């Protein structure tokens, strides 16, 4: 770094770093407690609620927010929206990191994490939707690593291997879309096995379609969100092309997200009509359903429309963050809030205890730190000078 150690340490003392340190100081011991005292030491640990916020956030919300990789790579390499090229690597990195950390949340949650490979190698349960998810997440993690490998190889100055990595771009992109289509929808299909538990307004034969379609706009909105945050906090790591094209590209992505949001909005109504659940809309869960749909799908869609009409990246960004909140809300509704909705003591179960929240925050913090570490070093927001026109 070229500065004395004491001075370097002093530069680390920023408000955000202090916050991160505080979160880790609380959360990491909680992870240790999980592996010494069992899940009951950190979660509500209920037989009625096998999955808590650890998976509701880490897996069910984390995976759609990580749809960035397949969405961007498909747009650029398959459909030929070339001008979005400056955002592809960011999309792939966001996706890869999202999946990696979804697996980390999972490893904390499952009983015997060292057996995580069992569905792949020891015993096959192909009637299980989770079997499919396990395979696809594992394969897709590999695919995304390969997709991102040119950036790593440029950082390592490995010119020859990088050429191979570039060659497989289109094949990996297609593999990525297939795997993503299947496991994004599979996360919804997992809940098809619980018809008596998920509230009928959220339970639908169309759940796989809902989860897949919403992952598309989640991916687009997430690229807008992450690119915005990075342009602000890691501005010096971006090249001029990235910074100059960001606003028009944001509006373009917003347009895509907006169309998909309206499609999703329509599909949700088809779901209600398909099951003829109109009567349920007048109940209390019905009001919550309408709130999700009107305030967290339709409203951000309208904001995005406005942003696109006015060509305002600022408004589009607001709409994107809003839409992301909606996706998270939807996943939490299906996996937690409206799961076992009619059991007594339900509210207590869906609010995580402090210790579990600490684990979630700690893992999210490590996620951000690692992400920043990579963007600081590898050519993600910029083209490497030695490798113009990167893959």
């Amino acid at each position: 770094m070229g500065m004395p150690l004491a001075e370097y340490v002093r530069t680390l003392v920023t408000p955000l770093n202090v916050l991160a340190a505080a979160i880790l100081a609380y959360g990491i011991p909680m992870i240790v407690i999980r592996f010494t005292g069992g899940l009951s030491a950190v979660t509500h640990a209920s037989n009625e609620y096998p999955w808590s916020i650890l998976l509701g956030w880490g897996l069910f919300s984390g995976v759609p927010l990580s749809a960035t990789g397949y969405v961007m790579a498909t747009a650029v390499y398959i459909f030929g929206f070339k001008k979005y090229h400056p955002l592809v690597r960011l999309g792939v990195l966001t996706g890869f990191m999202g999946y990696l950390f979804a697996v980390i949340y999972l490893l904390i949650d499952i009983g015997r994490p060292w057996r995580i490979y069992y569905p792949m190698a020891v015993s096959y349960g192909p009637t299980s939707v989770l079997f499919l998810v396990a395979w696809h997440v594992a394969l897709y993690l590999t695919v995304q690593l390969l997709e991102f490998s040119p950036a790593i190889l440029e950082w390592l100055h490995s010119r020859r291997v990088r050429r191979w990595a570039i060659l497989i771009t289109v094949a990996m992109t297609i593999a990525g879309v297939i795997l993503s289509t299947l496991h994004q929808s599979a996360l919804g299909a997992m809940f098809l096995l619980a018809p008596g538990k998920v509230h009928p307004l959220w339970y639908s034969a169309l759940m796989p379609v809902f989860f897949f379609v919403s992952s598309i706009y989640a991916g687009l909105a997430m690229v807008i969100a992450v690119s915005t945050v990075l342009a602000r906090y890691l501005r010096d790591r971006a090249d001029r092309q990235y910074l100059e094209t960001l606003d028009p590209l944001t509006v373009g992505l917003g347009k895509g997200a907006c169309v998909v949001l309206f499609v999703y909005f329509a599909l949700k109504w088809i779901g209600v009509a398909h099951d003829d659940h109109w009567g349920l809309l007048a109940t209390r869960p019905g009001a919550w359903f309408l709130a999700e749909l009107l305030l967290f799908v339709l409203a951000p869609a309208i904001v995005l429309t406005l942003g696109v009409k006015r060509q305002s990246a600022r408004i589009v960004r607001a709409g994107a963050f809003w839409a992301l909140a909606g996706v998270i809300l939807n996943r939490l509704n299906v996996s937690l809030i409206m799961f076992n909705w009619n059991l007594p003591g339900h509210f207590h179960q869906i609010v995580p205890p402090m210790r579990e929240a600490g684990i979630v925050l700690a893992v999210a913090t490590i996620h951000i730190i690692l992400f920043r570490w990579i963007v600081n070093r590898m050519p993600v927001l910029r083209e490497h000078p030695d490798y113009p026109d990167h893959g």
Partner: protein
Amino acid sequence: MSRRSCLKALGAAGCTVLSVGAGKAHAARNFSGWPDRFGMLVDLTECVGCRGCEAACNRANGLPAPEVPFDEKSVFEEKRRPTASAFTVVNRYSPKDGPRGPVYRKVQCNHCNEPGCASACPVRAYTKTPEGAVLYDKELCFGCRYCMVACPFYAPAYDYGSALDPRIEKCTFCHERVKAGGIPACAEACPVEAVRFGRRKDLITLARERIRKHPGRYVDRVFGEHEVGGTGWLYLSGVPFEQVDFPTDLPDKPLVEQTKGFLSAVPLVLVLWPAVLGLCYSAKRYKEEER
């Protein structure tokens, strides 16, 4: 069972076996389970709430001693569910449409004909035996707890307190005893024969007979005959089942049917997507070349 093995073939060998697998699925359409499998008939109108079945289950499975003894009636003040250290529990109800006095309901794994837990398990840790028990293998389980999500009866319990060796615990239908020609401990212990062991098809006949003979005593329904494809445990009740906390909003089809449509679309996506996306890619290349 054969539907599952068919899907296994699909998953393991990929698209090449698609046609073979489809053929098997067709043949398996009318599979209705092991013909001579055993079941249990629980008659809620007979049960006196003595908790003798709980005590017998505890002994037979070598479970830890309970916090409150089995002759303690105060446990009825709350509704309990099976846990990792109690595979069966009895709850007390005072239903509004009921006869005089309380109604007791024994709860445990219902040993479904086509179990949701088994179709949920990504490592096939669950087996439906020809005798009728749904058994769990802790050697395969990695602790994802999807089986607990899938079970409509909240039967599988998990020992959350174990840090590194947690497992699912549930009623085993006293499989070893049954295989050796015995009957499950709870049925053996019941002083009033409210829990009766037998071949499932005979028990259905018996249950129907009782309803026919005593129409005033029972509601006209054998719970478990059709629910989620039928369960090994069957119930007769004098009060509407929803008033004693039976889930009455369950489909009659086995739960695996709910995900079958999705799973059968998987090979289609695997085959069609590369073609469709490849086409998009070539169209893009073609336009670029024209320019």
